[in-house]
């Protein structure tokens, strides 16, 4: 099957439709349009494709009513229901676009459709910051160029040739050829390159009058509740939740990070799982200082970029004692709008949560107390630890017995280590659990299945420690990190993890992780996971170079360019080692530049001389030179020649110059050839003749 070249009319309509569709896609990828508006556009598009010209001019009263009503409803929603005005505008423009897709015929209709598509793209720019917008934008740039150029061509033909005269051209398949469409696509790539140039050079001085915040998204995995009774297969989720750069970088630049990323602690047993204590959050201007220092602090700075949809307002910190959190980009002096908060469990949060990606810098003391440091502590606990000592009422006696067997009579630190060791070695890690609800998930895990996922391991350890009177809590977060080609580590949704914190006097909470080490974190390395990583790399670059590009980035880019130019200048000037070679290169570059300049000037001069921008042929140029020289020789010989005298007139007065005049006329105007040798010979004969000439009786 071969694809037929479309007619100009078909190509123009398709291009307009494609531009409108891509503009809609740029809005749709934000995920904020809502299901109704999301479905409406494809539906309208299908109907317009099926109905074609039949729809034109029909149901105008219905459209007017619908659009008027929609305007009132959207305005009301903005005023009274606090719907975002940009979103409401996007909805309305989408309706106008559908209306225009149904009413196409005149030049005005087509141009209106393109302008509305442009508005929809702008709405997309305000609603979405994702890489998918970037792809929709590129597509729009190409199809929009097609649509604009073909629309212009179509209606220029109609205006130039009339309705009947243009029909043949509009239905011709020899105009909108692949070559033309390819040329226009090339043109759009020039426009995109220009857009990039304007984008990077346009001064980022913003008034900052009104800026739209993205809608916060609820997040799975970082919630304040864990339900162990929900069984089934846990799928690895390769979506990226964190992008991390560590300073100092991990030793040996490993492929994977063996690091816990703490989110929040869940202390209250619900009978089927855990929940947080539900206390409120308070501003935290300064984080609590570390009470116990076994060894000198070993600081680790983590530049964390949290992907918006996964943050849920929780500040994730790398393992260690958090010392400081700053909401700003590295190198930036401007603080972010977010502020740090804490709850009673010591979990860190930020406000406001606007659903956008967030970047912050966390400094932790990564030195954690060893067994010797926590061993031999008293067993008196402050009252605020009561929730972390609560033992579930319905706890199976078998669990208590097991805890007693593993840690009874031991020092709390030794008991914790023993339970952690037993769980990690005696039980098996699995993500596949039966599709049935268990009334006692911990007993089921410990004695029936003897296999489970990280939440079961950590929950079992917490209740066993508590049954021994040791304060403990379940902690959620992530474990791991995968190195990317872009030079940062990603933590993925599939790296979600759960572990235990046990409290020791004068030391505080200490981390234990009973899940077998080999089973922690994500194990996704398949094609899909790699594709997700690749996508994330693109997304990260998009965010860095496009979405987050600001005045500071602009200044840095200009400084960098100046630096590169300076280095190149110094190299060309030959200062430094291989001076002679560089000096030669500099001279060569300068000579090339001068030659280019001279060639340009010569071209300009030739154009100016020819008057119409058409260059003379070499023969014509030689003829011109020959005649100018001949006139000069005559003047030197004392012959007065009027400035406006033609070659023929001069030759009639002075037969000596006849040969030169004829040669000039033949080559300059008659298309005859004139070689340099012939021209020189003609001039020589002229000089001979002038030496023996008779003085002219009068000037011509």
């Amino acid at each position, binding site marked *: 099957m071969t694809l037929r070249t479309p007619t100009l009319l078909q190509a123009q309509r398709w291009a307009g439709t494609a531009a409108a569709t891509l503009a809609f896609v740029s809005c749709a990828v934000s995920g904020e349009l809502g299901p109704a508006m999301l479905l409406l556009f494809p539906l309208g598009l299908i109907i317009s494709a099926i109905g074609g010209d039949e729809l034109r001019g029909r149901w105008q009263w219905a459209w007017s009513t619908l659009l008027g009503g929609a305007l009132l409803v959207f305005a009301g929603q903005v005023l009274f229901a606090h719907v975002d005005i940009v979103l409401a505008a996007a909805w309305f423009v989408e309706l106008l676009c559908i209306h225009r897709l149904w009413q196409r015929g005149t030049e005005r209709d087509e*141009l209106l459709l393109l*302008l509305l598509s*442009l*508005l929809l*793209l*702008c709405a*997309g*720019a*305000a609603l*979405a*910051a994702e890489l998918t*917008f970037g792809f929709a*934008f590129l597509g729009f*740039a190409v199809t929009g*160029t097609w649509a*604009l*150029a073909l*629309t*212009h*061509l179509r*209606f*220029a*033909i109609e*205006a*130039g*040739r009339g309705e009947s005269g243009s029909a043949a*051209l509009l239905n011709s398949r020899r*105009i909108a050829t692949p070559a033309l469409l390819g040329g*226009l696509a090339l*043109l759009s790539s*020039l*426009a*995109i*390159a*220009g*857009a*990039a*140039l*304007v*984008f990077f050079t*346009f001064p*980022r*001085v*913003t*008034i*900052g*009058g*009104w*800026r*739209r915040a993205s809608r916060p998204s609820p997040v799975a995995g970082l919630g304040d509740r864990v339900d162990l009774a929900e069984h089934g297969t846990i799928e690895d989720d390769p979506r990226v939740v964190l992008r991390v750069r560590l300073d100092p970088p991990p030793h040996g630049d490993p492929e994977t990070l063996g690091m816990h990323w703490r989110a929040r602690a869940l202390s209250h047993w619900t009978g089927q799982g855990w929940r947080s204590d539900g206390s409120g959050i308070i501003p935290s201007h300064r984080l609590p200082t570390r009470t116990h220092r076994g060894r000198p602090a070993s600081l680790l700075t983590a530049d964390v970029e949290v992907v918006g949809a996964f943050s849920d307002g929780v500040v994730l910190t790398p393992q260690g004692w958090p010392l400081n959190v700053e909401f700003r980009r590295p190198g930036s002096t401007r603080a972010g709008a977010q502020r740090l908060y804490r709850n009673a469990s010591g979990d860190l949060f930020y406000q406001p949560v606007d659903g956008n990606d967030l970047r912050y810098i966390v400094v932790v003391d990564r030195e954690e107390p060893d067994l010797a440091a926590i061993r031999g502590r008293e067993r008196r606990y402050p009252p605020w630890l009561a929730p972390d000592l609560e033992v579930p009422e319905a706890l199976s006696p078998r669990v208590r017995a097991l805890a007693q067997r593993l840690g009874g009579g031991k020092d709390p630190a030794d008991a914790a280590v023993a339970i952690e060791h037993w769980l990690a070695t005696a039980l098996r890690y699995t993500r596949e659990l039966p599709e049935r609800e268990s009334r006692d998930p911990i007993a089921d895990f410990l004695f029936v299945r003897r296999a489970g996922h990280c939440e079961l391991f950590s929950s079992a350890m917490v209740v066993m420690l508590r049954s021994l009177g040791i304060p403990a809590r379940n902690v959620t977060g992530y474990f791991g990190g995968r190195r990317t080609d872009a030079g940062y580590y990603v933590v993925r949704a599939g790296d979600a993890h759960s572990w235990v914190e046990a409290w020791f006097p004068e030391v505080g909470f200490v981390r234990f992780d009973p899940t077998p080490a080999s089973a922690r974190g994500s194990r996704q390395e398949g094609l899909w996971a790699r594709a997700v990583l690749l996508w994330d790399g693109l997304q990260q670059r998009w965010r860095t170079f*496009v*979405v*987050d*590009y*600001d005045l500071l980035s602009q200044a840095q880019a200009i400084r960098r360019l100046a630096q590169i130019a300076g280095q190149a200048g110094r190299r060309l000037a030959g200062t430094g080692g291989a001076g002679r070679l560089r000096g030669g290169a500099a001279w060569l570059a300068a000579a090339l530049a001068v030659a280019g300049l001279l060639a340009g000037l010569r071209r300009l001069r030739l*154009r100016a001389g020819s*008057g*119409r*921008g*058409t260059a003379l042929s070499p023969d014509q140029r030689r003829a011109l030179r020959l005649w100018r020289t001949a006139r000069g020789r005559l003047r030197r010989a004392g012959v007065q020649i009027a400035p406006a005298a033609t070659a023929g007139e001069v030759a009639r007065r002075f037969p000596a110059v006849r040969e030169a005049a004829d040669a000039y006329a033949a080559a300059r105007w008659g298309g005859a050839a004139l070689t340099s040798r012939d021209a020189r010979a003609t001039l020589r004969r002229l000089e001979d003749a002038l030496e023996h000439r008779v003085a002219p009786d009068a000037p011509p």
Partner: protein
Amino acid sequence: MTPAWKRRLAFTRMGRWYTGLTVAIGLAATNTGNNLLFLVLGLLLSSIIVSGILSEQSLKGVSVERRLPSVATAGQPALVGLLARNGKPHAPSFSLEVREARGDVAGHGFLVVLPAQRAAEVAYRFVPQRRGLHRFRQIELATRAPFGFFEKSRPMDAEAELVVFPREVAPAAVEARAPGREGDRPEDRAGIGLEVHLLRDHRAGEDARSIHWRSSARAGRLIGIDREQERRKRVCVVLDQRGLRGEPLDRAVEQAAALVVREIDSGAEVSLALAGQSLAAGAGDGQRHAALRMLALVEPCGGEEAAPVPEAQASILEVPA
């Protein structure tokens, strides 16, 4: 002289909307600091620049030549040809409108595409509404390519003149003065005619048809005959345009033209006598062209101008004022 680099730039309706939207998006981007709006702004601005470069590319290297009709008559359609030639070595020119500018005549032609190193002719129909001189000053080469945002035009000097003959009307019934002089008259010299000019001895080798047999019989030798050169009917059309202006002058000129045409078509030699100028008698297409051209260019004049001097020996047809 119009320099080759001179360009005129005008917004189209789409261009006005597009530019307005670009400014609005620029303001929105500056206000919000939304980089994606800056990206859209960059696309819009660079599209304007690309549009400017391409429209220039379309106009560059194209020359236009006007081809005027040999004869044009008021009230009757005439075709004016515009021959455009793309001298660029490789690049075609798109969406070219070739039009008259600053002259007395308005007309235009449209070329969808003009391939490199090729020429194409477009013609426009032009119905002159008045007699006389029509001046052509410039040809404007305009394009809205590629997007139709702006119309860029390049004026080119192309001065030319077209004399439009008076409108064709039915000739009025005008009584000829000196009607006795009407008809073909001998000129008293040998030539081609019917009447006998003289009899003479027949020269050897002459056509036998030139022998006057009766005289030869009478004289006993061959007598040849020379025929009399006959002169055509000679008419002088007289128009005294002194004191005439506007519509009456045009009506009178049209009548004079109608009489001239009628007489020349009937084979007469026609001369023209106007106030202050005259045209010697003549016949045929050349005379018709000369007379109509003179009538086309008749200007109003006052009483100081010399009265028309009719040709002696000719029937006089005086155009009523």
